[in-house]
Each structure stands twice: as C-alpha cells, then as structure tokens.
C-alpha cells in the first residue's frame, strides 16, 4: 500500500515536473542579494574530470582550501572526461539539481547561460570579496578572455588549461641531422618528409578534439567566428585559411609524412617510435613521457608558424550554478578564487605535471620547476599567441562533427580540401540557424 501511495505521488510529481520542464527549464534567476561574508558551515559540491593522476592534486587543493576556510566543506565529484561530464551535467541541470561549482568548457556554458543556470561571476569579481584590478590583470589575458561572453560578462574563470605545442622525438631528429624543430610550415613539411622512412610516418594526427587543426588554422590567419557570433564565410573560402591548413595536412598524408590515427593511440605510436611528431597540449606531457619510457629524448617546440605565430588554448573553466544558495555561491566563489590564486595555480600546475598556471605571477615562483619541465615552459611561452576556444551555441557541433568530418573527408580523399570546407560552411550555416549564436 505504502509503495502504491509513493508511486502515485511520484507519478503526480512527475507530471508537475514535466510541465515545469515544458514551461522552461532551470528558470531560477540568480539570487539578487548575496551575503557578503561566510558565517555558518557550508557544503559545496565540485564536479570535475580530473581523475587518475590528477585526483590527488585536486584533493591537495581542497585540503589547502579547507585549512583557509574551515567552515566550508568541498565535496569532490570526479568523472572520467568530457564525454562523461557532459551527460552528467546536462541531466543534473535539466532536473534542476546541478552541483555548486563545476569544471566545464566554454561552448557548453553558452547553453547553460541562456537558461540562466550559471551565475555571472562578474558580480562576485566586483563585489566585496572580489578581485582587485591588479589581481584581474595577473590572469593570462587569453585564458581569462575564454571565460568572458560578448556582452562583457565573465561567467567562467580559467582552471585547467594548456596550450597546443609540438612534441618530437629528439633522438630521431638528430639521427636525421635535424638540429632544430622547424619554425615554418615549409620547414615542417620538408623535415617530416625527410624523417618518414622505412614505413615510419613522422606526423601523427589525432582528432579526439579539433584543436590540433585549429592551431594550424589560426596560424594561417583564420578565425571561424565572425564579429556577431556568426560563422565567418571567409574562413572557409577556397583560398582561405581553413583550406590552406587542410591542404598542408592532406599533402603530408599523401606523401606518407603523416598518419591519421584515432583516440589516444597516437601517444603509443609516438612512444614506440612509429611516429616522431605529435601535436598536443602540454597536458599530454606525462602520458607521452610514460609512452616513450626513456627510449628517446622528447623535445618540445612551439607550433611552426605561417602567416602568424599562433596556437590553440584548450581546457576547463570553472562556473558557479545559480541553483545554489547564496551562502554556497559565496563559498564556491571563495573556492574558485583559491584555485585560481597564485598559490592555488602553482600547486595545480606543478603537481598536475602538464597544465599551465593561470596567473602571470605564478611563473616567477615556478622557475626551477619549469626548467625541469620543458613542455610546460614551451606552452607557457606560446601563451601570448594562444587563442581560447570559441563558444557560440553552434560551436559544439561544428568543432566536434562538421569540422572533423571535413578534415577526415580531405585526408581520406573523399573530397578536395576546398570542397570539404565548402560543404562544412553549408552545414555550419544550417546548424547556426537551428541553435543560434550566444
């Protein structure tokens, strides 16, 4: 009987939830009057994807934060990667049950913002517990800008990010008589050709994300997002930057100087010497070291440049959810401030063995660490040329599907680079019409 009653009330509640959902999900407006100081004990939940080797570092950060704020308890909820965090966040937000603070990539946040699920951090930044202008300017601008929306609101602050660089097999380079990693596309192409002998293909292309391509595309002077958040037609033009970058890759594949791999298998190919150049963010560094296992020296270099020097910034930001109570929001803000403080970011960058600090002041404190970890040093040096991930609503499907399909189509000879990019433009226009900009 009890079960029946519960079932019934559950079903009725469901109808209520259903209609609520249909009426517009997560309409909770940000709480207007946030408390200005933390008094009673508060518990906040922190969702992130820093699993495996990163988890102890997150724990260390939380412990350090607990020491500073004994009345705040941070619950760490970890999931394996984007593919796991996205459905989890999505379901939780739809059900009106999000965490207090979560790691996320800017393109997902665009959706969360338009349903008012995220608190504008600008309010906190300007508030009594905020950041001074000096502190704000201490953030690397390219990183901070990635969390800022076109209306000028800062919704996210950078946490675990890194810039794209080149890893190469220094031993094999030296054996081929190449002393320095090439600095131009032409040099890159020629060296890769020279290194590709005995069935070895120098450049391992992997498309878990599209940022390795984006880095080349940016160097050719491209930007996919126009001033109003619309797809930029010029970027896709037959003589445009996308076609140019894709033509380089296609030529390399055609001349057996590059190989298209899948997933993180490229790490292993690099590790066992089947390929000699791998493009990745410095966060991949510990995995590559492990794959190489001391069989050769790993070199790192900035991306070879074309029209400009550029690279792609990739990684996670922190955002606070509006469903949380004002006290939780404030506690979460304190936590976010701590994670992105000089102390917090140094701890993170040094122990995660691959991510970059988000503050300029951290660099001076890390000199000895950086000299022992060239990948992060290289990425940090490239940061001034780095572009943060774009974030109009159409970006997710564009960068994960439309763009990757265009690259695959050219590399697999289904289409010419120009035709592939032309088709990609048609598709992205359609996607934009469906999902909008910001």
């Amino acid at each position, binding site marked *: 009987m009890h079960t029946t009653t519960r079932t019934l009330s559950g079903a009725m509640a469901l109808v209520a939830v259903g209609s609520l959902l249909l009426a517009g999900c997560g309409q909770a407006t940000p709480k207007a009057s946030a408390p200005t100081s933390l008094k009673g004990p508060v518990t906040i939940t922190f969702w992130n994807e820093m699993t495996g080797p990163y988890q102890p570092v997150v724990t260390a950060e939380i412990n350090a934060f607990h020491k500073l704020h004994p009345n705040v308890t941070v619950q760490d909820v970890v999931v394996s990667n984007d*593919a796991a965090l*996205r459905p989890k966040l999505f379901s939780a937000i739809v059900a009106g049950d999000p965490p207090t603070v979560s790691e996320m990539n800017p393109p997902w946040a665009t*959706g969360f913002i338009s349903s008012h699920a995220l608190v504008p951090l600008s309010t906190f930044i300007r508030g009594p517990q905020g950041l001074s202008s000096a502190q704000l300017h201490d953030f690397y601008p390219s990183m901070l800008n990635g969390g800022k929306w076109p209306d000028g609101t800062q919704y996210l602050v950078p946490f675990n990010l890194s810039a794209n660089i080149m890893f190469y097999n220094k031993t094999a380079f030296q054996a081929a008589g190449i002393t320095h990693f090439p600095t131009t596309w032409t040099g890159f192409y020629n060296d890769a050709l020279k290194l590709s002998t005995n069935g070895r293909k120098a450049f391992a292309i992997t498309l878990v994300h599209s940022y390795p391509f984006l880095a080349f595309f940016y160097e050719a002077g491209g930007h996919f997002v126009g001033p109003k958040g619309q797809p930029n037609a010029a970027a896709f033009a037959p003589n445009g930057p996308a076609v140019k970058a894709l033509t380089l890759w296609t030529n390399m594949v055609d001349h057996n100087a590059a190989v298209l791999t899948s997933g993180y*298998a490229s790490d292993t190919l690099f590790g066992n010497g089947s390929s000699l150049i791998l493009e990745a963010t410095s966060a991949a560094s510990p995995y590559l070291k492990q794959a190489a296992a001391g069989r050769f020296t790993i070199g790192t270099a900035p991306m070879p440049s074309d029209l400009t020097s550029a690279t792609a910034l990739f990684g996670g930001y922190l955002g606070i959810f509006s469903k949380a109570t004002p006290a939780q929001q404030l506690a979460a803000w304190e936590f976010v401030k701590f994670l992105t403080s000089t102390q917090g970011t140094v701890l993170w960058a040094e122990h995660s063995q691959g991510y970059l600090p988000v503050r300029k002041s951290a660099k001076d404190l890390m000199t000895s660490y950086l000299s022992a970890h060239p990948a992060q040093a290289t990425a940090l040096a490239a940061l001034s040329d780095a572009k943060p991930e774009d974030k109009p609503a159409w970006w997710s499907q564009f960068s994960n*599907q439309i763009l990757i399909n265009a690259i695959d189509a050219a590399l*697999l000879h289904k289409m010419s680079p120009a035709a592939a990019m032309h088709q990609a433009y048609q598709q992205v226009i359609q996607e934009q019409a469906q999902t909008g900009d910001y």
Partner: protein
Amino acid sequence: MTLIKDRHTLQTLNGVKVALFIIPALIVLGIFWVLPLIMGLIFSLFHWNFGQNPVWAGWHEYQLVISSSLFWQSLLNTILFALGVVGVGTALAIVLALILYQEIAGKGLFRTLLFIPYVMPLVASSTIWLWIYQPGVGLLDRMLQLVGLPGSTSWVQNTTWALPAIILFTIWYSLGFTTLLFLAGLTTVSPELGEAALIDGASPWMRFRRITWPLLSPTTLFVIIVNTIGVFQSFTQIFELTRGGPLGATTTLTYLVYEDAFQYFHFGTSLATGVLLFIVVAGITALQFLVSRRAINYGD
C-alpha cells in the same frame, strides 16, 4: 443466477491472480521504461535545444531528423551492423553450441574461455581493441604481416573498414553469450530424439537438419531477436573505437541519440531520433516474428 454470479467471481479471482503475477514486473517496467518513453515522446514534440525554452514544435524535430542525411546513413549503418553481427555471430554460435553440448573433454574450460570477452568491462576491452586496430603496429596488422600481407591498414580510420572493425569486435565480444543461449536452448531438445534417428540410420547432417534445427528454431528466433536488439543499442565500442567516424561511417542510431543530446545539446532532435529508433527496432522485431511464424516449432 448463481451460476452466472459464480462465473463472475471466478473471473474476478482469476483477474486478481493474474494481477499478482504480473504487477511487480509491470510496475518496474512501466515506471522506468514506458513512462520515460512517453515523456520522451512528449518532449520530442517541442523544440528543445539546451538553454532555450522549449517551444511547441509539433513534428518539426522529426522533420529535421528525417531530412538529415546523417540519420539515413546511421540507419543504414545500424542495419549493416546488425546483419553482420547477427548473421555471422549466430552461425558461429550454433556450431560452437552443438560441439560444446556434447560430452567432450574440457568443455567447461572452453565455455569459460569463450565467455571471457563478455565478462570483461567493455570500456577496457574496446580500449584494448583500439590498439589492436592501429595501423602498422597494432596486433591485427602485425598478424597480417606475419602471414605476408601488407598489414598497414588504418582499420578504424577508414570509411571502408571502420564498420567491419566494429562488427568484428562485437562478434568477438558477444560470441560467448550467444553460444550460451544456444546451449540453454539445446536443453529443451531431447537427446532421445537424436538417438531415435540414429537408430534409423540418419547421418549427422540429416539429424541436425531434420531434428535438432527444427527443435532449435524457437531458440534461433529468440537469439536473432535479442541480438538484433542488442546490436541496435550498442554504444560503448563505437564510442571508444571510432566515435562514430570517420565521416559518420560507424554512426549508429543509438550513437546519434547520445551525440545529439550530450555532445551538441540538441535535446529535441535527440529524442525524436530515439523515438524513431524505437519504431525501427519494434518494426524489425515484428517482421522477424511474422516471417518466422511458420518456420517455428514450439512443440505444442
């Protein structure tokens, strides 16, 4: 009068009895499977991109889905995937089950070994197979090189081979379970029938064709239906091995549903695709039932 009343009572009693037998299952299936499907169906009639307020859209999301070439490509992929796995997997499993049903030495060991892939966590085994499929240096290419073939194929990064690679993995993964289903089915086939036929001088093939196969046909239908449904719902191996690529060559409908909702936050089209997928599977299953109705011997 009394007679009619009694019949009523009997019917009511029977109704109560039936209810007691089926209600526990129906409550669970109703609340956690049918109700969400109905909710999904209702939600799919709204334009529901994440972050935008849902707007009544009627069949608009369905029109969007049907007009996308990826949907049709995924449907075709799904059907090819099912044909490959169910066709080859079922035939192999019948052979193995017939051998393992007999008294032969070490059959327990063979059965267990065959079952290992089904027991391994899919996340782990498909990650392992990603390495097996690596061009030139993966286990598959190495083995091909050993027998003198070129062995430098990008198995999962190639529009021709990616789907067969997924099919091969899935057969490998599910063979032990399919064999087990047939073994269980064979328990209902009386060994004495076979012996009777043996006395009559029937050859092993004749025995199989005339006796075992007809008696096994309910199991075969069952296995085909269950495996078809299983294949239609496969997700993990596709995600780990190819992420639906290259160029959508391994995007199945289930993968499309996942990708649309959780990667691109297109909740409306995702739900519409999910509803269409349900209709497709139900249609195929009904077809399988109808086609095989005549051929099945239930022994009653």
